[in-house]
């Protein structure tokens, strides 16, 4: 009865909370810029290593909580490694830290790990969850979502984190590097953030997802709730949703050619650009895309109640080589180099053909025809090289005129057109030669068909010759050099590409304005949302539970002053994330034990540990589980970056899990069973405990193979069983075995040794590998205590 009454009361409170005035809504804590809170006075001053602890301690004291003691050294080492670089310490590191004379080892390890390039790999995966990293997916081979070479963006994230690029700069580059650094391919990789949202069929879905996740990911605002009607909880009008959409309305995706790779399909940089400068944004009545309200054009902007206002949108004139990427020197060089290589290859083939003597297998006429094919291929390659040269010259001359604002066409155009025509003749000539050879080689039944093909080839040649002999007409153009390719959409008809979108000379500047506003130090949300994510990954539980909703329907922070202190610290440090990592991991709060022992009185007052009187244990992320097992074998492949590992190659791969192909449709089964990120939305991962995980760890070859290798590796370090057990517990689980654990382990080793050993191994090493297998299945292997 009492319980029911309480339920009803809670419900009424909840209803009441939902019905405030707009003014109250605007006063919501998260919509006010954070101010630097002063440090509260605390009694246990010695407990506090830095201001984080002061805030935490002040809550302890207010609630009469006694913080748990520091965790043991080995466990602290394990925490730092798994948290900062995502793999556990090896036997050497464990030994070194065990032998350390005082506590100064801790700071040293923190510095070392923050400088370790694996730090970027570990933390990139966290941000990739929030920023929705996804390799491409579609139906069969058809690209429908994201982009084929989106992994360049992943590499940019890893590199940026390792270089400690400020958070605000990362956000600005992801949203608008094409406007701020339009010719810098390295930085353009950042706009993979936008290229990932590319969707072949539906522009509305694409942009709606963009608005939703820009606002959830960077601002903790659920703008998506205002798509069909005004937001029910936050002062966001339906029009605000479309104003933010207008920021993104012009953007499209293209792939820019990389130095040395002339085939954009092979490799290129997927990036954003503004292609639809004049596209109006309309509010959809009730959010229905078939019902645009064309009476008002939504102007790019942000909800009015948020301060500061968004800066004025200023169109940005792009450098010429940004919108005419063929001007980029490496584009021309790469294409020339590729053309030269073709000539060389054809010449070599010709030489080889010359050397082949005519014989029984290759009668005289056929040998001659083959020679003709090889010769015509050389001619083709040469004329194509010439055509390219002339087209580059003509393009340069044209650019030169454009740069000097001259309207007159240049002579080089006609030269290029003629060169291209000659290449076309050479191509047809080569095709005729090939067709002739096919006729000679054709089996009797296929002769007619081959003759027909030859006749067609000859006809094409006649036409090409006729064209090449005609006069070049005014206005005739040559095939442009392609330095980038628009990612063709099919919004209008799923069976054919939409009309191509050109690369304009200017960009709208809308995304630059939005990025400037998001990263303005006065923005009330950005820094808070970022530090909440960072805190969550270090400590397992966020300060604001609703990590993507800081609005009024979200949960209030458990430690508002701490959140604001961290947010202002991030901003004043120059959005320095490594500084924040260091602060958090060197705090006393971070070092506490997660045990409940001795905390019984605390548990009565704060059963859910909302006040951080102990550490919360964390179920390791999927990638850390796999990477740890591999790292302990000593075989983890340290190669960084590059194209994702395809599903078929994953079982054999020793690369870090971060590099596995990961999309909506294709995810690694092992990682999936441990709650790897869903690509559509993953602001906070599940930490589920399900039997599939037990099956994956007991039966999967990952753990079975690792068990052998780890056992062999450890056996080279120690000889006695007791020492082996000691080392295995320390390195795999982060604690020293007690007497009971030692006894149980020794007994098990004895029992295994009495059984027939694995093939190719002796009884002792088989037993040890089984012990490792058991420890890899121990709760503490997948848990960060």
């Amino acid at each position, binding site marked *: 009865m009492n319980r029911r009454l309480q339920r009803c009361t809670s*419900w009424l409170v909840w209803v009441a909370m939902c019905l405030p005035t707009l003014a109250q809504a605007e006063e919501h804590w998260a919509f006010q810029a954070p101010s630097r809170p002063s440090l509260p006075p605390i009694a246990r001053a010695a407990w506090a290593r830095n201001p984080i602890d002061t805030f935490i301690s002040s809550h302890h004291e207010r609630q009469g909580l006694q913080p748990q003691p520091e965790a043991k050294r080995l466990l602290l080492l394990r925490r730092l490694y798994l948290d900062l670089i995502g793999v556990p310490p090896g036997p050497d590191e464990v030994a070194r830290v065990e032998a350390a004379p005082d506590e100064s080892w801790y700071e040293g390890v923190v510095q070392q790990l923050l400088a370790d390039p694996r730090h970027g790999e570990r933390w990139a995966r966290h941000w990739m969850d929030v920023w929705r990293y996804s390799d491409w997916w579609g139906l069969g081979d058809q690209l429908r979502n994201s982009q084929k070479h989106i992994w360049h963006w992943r590499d940019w994230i890893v590199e940026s984190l390792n270089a400690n690029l400020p958070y605000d700069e990362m956000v600005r580059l992801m949203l608008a590097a094409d406007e701020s650094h339009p010719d810098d391919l390295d930085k353009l990789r950042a706009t993979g953030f936008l290229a990932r949202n590319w969707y072949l069929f*539906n522009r509305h879905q694409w942009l709606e997802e963009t608005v939703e996740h820009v606002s959830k990911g960077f601002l903790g605002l659920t703008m998506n709730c205002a798509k069909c009607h005004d937001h029910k909880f936050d002062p966001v009008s339906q029009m605000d949703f479309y104003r933010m959409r207008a920021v993104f309305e012009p953007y499209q995706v293209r792939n820019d050619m990389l130095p040395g790779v002339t085939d954009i399909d092979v490799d290129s940089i997927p990036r954003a650009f503004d292609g639809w400068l004049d596209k109006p944004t309309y509010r959809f009545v009730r959010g229905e895309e078939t019902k645009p309200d064309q009476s008002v054009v939504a102007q790019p902007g942000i909800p009015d109640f948020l301060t500061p206002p968004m800066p004025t949108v200023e169109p940005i004139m792009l450098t010429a080589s940004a919108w005419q990427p063929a001007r980029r020197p490496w584009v021309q060089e790469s294409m020339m180099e590729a053309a030269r290589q073709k000539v060389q290859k054809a010449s070599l083939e010709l030489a080889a053909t010359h050397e082949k003597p005519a014989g029984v297998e290759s009668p005289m006429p056929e040998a001659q025809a083959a020679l003709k094919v090889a010769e015509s291929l050389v001619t083709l390659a040469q004329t194509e090289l010439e055509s390219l040269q002339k087209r580059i010259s003509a393009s340069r001359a044209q650019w030169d005129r454009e740069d000097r604002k001259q309207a007159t066409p240049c002579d080089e155009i006609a030269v290029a057109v003629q060169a291209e025509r000659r290449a076309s003749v050479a191509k047809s000539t080569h095709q005729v030669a090939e067709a002739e050879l096919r006729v000679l080689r054709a089996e009797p039944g296929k002769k007619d068909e081959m003759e027909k093909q030859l006749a067609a080839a000859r006809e094409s040649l006649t036409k090409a010759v006729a064209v090449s002999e005609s006069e070049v007409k005014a206005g005739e153009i040559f095939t442009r050099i392609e330095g980038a390719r628009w990612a063709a959409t099919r919004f209008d008809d799923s069976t054919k590409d939409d009309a191509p979108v050109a690369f304009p000379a200017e960009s709208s500047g809308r995304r630059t304005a939005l990025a400037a506003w998001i990263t303005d130090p006065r923005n009330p949300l950005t820094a808070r949302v970022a530090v909440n994510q960072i805190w969550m990954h270090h400590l397992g539980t966020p300060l604001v539970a609703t990590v993507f*909703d800081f609005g009024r329907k979200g949960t209030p922070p458990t430690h508002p002053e701490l959140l604001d202190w961290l947010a202002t610290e991030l901003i004043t440090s120059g959005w320095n994330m490594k500084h924040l990592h260091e602060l958090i991991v060197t705090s006393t709060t971070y070092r506490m034990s997660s045990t409940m022992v001795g905390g019984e009185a605390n548990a009565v007052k704060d*059963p*859910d540990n909302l006040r951080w009187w102990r550490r919360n244990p964390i179920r390791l992320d999927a990638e850390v589980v796999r990477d740890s097992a591999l790292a302990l074998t000593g075989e983890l492949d340290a190669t960084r970056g590059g194209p994702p590992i395809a599903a078929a190659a994953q079982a054999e791969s020793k690369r870090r899990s971060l590099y596995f192909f990961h999309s909506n449709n294709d995810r690694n089964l092992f990682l999936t069973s441990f709650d790897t990120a869903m690509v559509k939305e993953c602001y906070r991962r599940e*930490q589920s405990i399900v039997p599939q995980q037990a*099956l994956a760890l007991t039966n999967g070859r990952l753990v*079975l193979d690792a068990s052998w290798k780890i056992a062999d590796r450890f056996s080279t370090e120690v000889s006695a069983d007791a020492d082996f057990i000691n080392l295995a517990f320390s390195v795999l689980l982060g604690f020293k075995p007690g007497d009971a654990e030692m006894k149980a382990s020794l007994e098990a080793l004895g029992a295994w040794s009495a059984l027939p050993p694995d093939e190719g191994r002796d009884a002792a090493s088989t037993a040890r590998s089984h012990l490792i297998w*058991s420890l890899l299945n121990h709760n503490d292997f997948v848990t960060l205590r």
Partner: protein
Amino acid sequence: MQTAHPFRTLPRRAFLADMGLGFTGLALGAMLQREGRAEETLWVPPDGQPHFAPKAKSVIWLFMNGGVSHLESFDPKPMLNKYAGKTIAETPYASTQSPDKLALARVTVPDANGNQRNELYPLQVGYKPYGQSGMEISDWFPRIARNADRIALVRSMYTTDSNHGAQTQFHSGRHNLDGDFPNLGAWVHYGLGSLNENLPQFISMGTREYWNKRDGHYLGPAHDAVPLRIDPANPLDFGISERPFSQQSKEIGISLMRRLNDLRGVEYPQEPAMAARIASYELAFRMQTSVPDIVDFSKEAEETKSLYGLDQPHCREFAGQLLAARRLVERGVRFIQIQHGGGGAGAWDAHGGLKENHATQALAVDQPVGALLEDLDRRGMLDETLVVFATEFGRTPGSQGGTGRDHHVFGFSVWMAGGGLKRGVVHGTTDEIGFHAVDNRHYVTDIHATILKQMGLDSRRLEIPGRKRLEIDHGVPITEIIA
């Protein structure tokens, strides 16, 4: 009274104590996972008990991928033969195509398919009335037809996605464009605790290749169906050791692991995650023996095996899945979701060559499905087992390319049997040419609501904070077919 949003009023630990850490398996893992949310909001997860007295204990969900023609299966229309070759505009039914009536369809992808087909296409197969009810069923489904008096047929279904995203829509109730939402099986799994401690409670069979491959979505991966293969040697992912590992060695390892985990409880007592981890291993080990047993049919009578059609090549695959489904139901599994013809757009997607396509696909499912109903009934299990035979949409009355029918969202058929539903009833109708559902129209979530009602669940009491559900997500139970 219970409110739509029940709120947590007790500390979490007390709640866990109430639940008892003694029960094991998925439910606990799932519960602890929910607990992660519970600490953030004033709300309690379901306690595994039905909200009211249930009629059904288990659901067998059969889903025909690609879109079964309602016209050539369970809703034959003689007018198609009468007006064959005429455009709809030339028939008395011209008004079926008035734009306001077509506004229902919500296009994801403008496509060569999913369009209006105007020239009426005659029925490609005959049909007859069956059973006491005189239910008209096409000649391609003779075995199911023999069970007409066990079936509650709904001929007035509609959906809105004219692409195959409607497959997802039928499972989750939401259009593909809205995002990913939990499937019905995940809700049932979430709402009801374990009936069996040796098996996962939500199982999926058959190729799954509609737009989303998961079930739990925001309910969490603990509510994804566990995939099962009809292969006694390897029925589960990671179900057998991928390297040689003797059973004896493994048992020593497992008992060591248990011992070590228990010992850890000295330093880290009262840890629910540890308890759940231990429980998840126990269930995993039991699953390794209980799951192969499910797909080992050696103890089934020969008569039963041939009843399902296990000895017939044309329907062997589906027969095995349905026999396994019955065995799962016997062991108390809650929800068995079986996809027929999954892969690509789906095997039933007869844009051309409908006659050959549907004749073949029907042959692959008819005998096993009929046998399932007969077998469940003779064992007295049909009353507590709800069998669903569904598809994402129907097919157009008009012809596509002269030999096929296109996707059709405006009217199609779904039937259910058992689980406390009426036997031998037809509910709802489409118009004379099978175009629009005209009376007692039902959106796909009405099927969900009916099933949940029979399972004793109130979908509004399953809601979780922060995840607003719409009226249409809940649907309305089809009371007319409930016994």
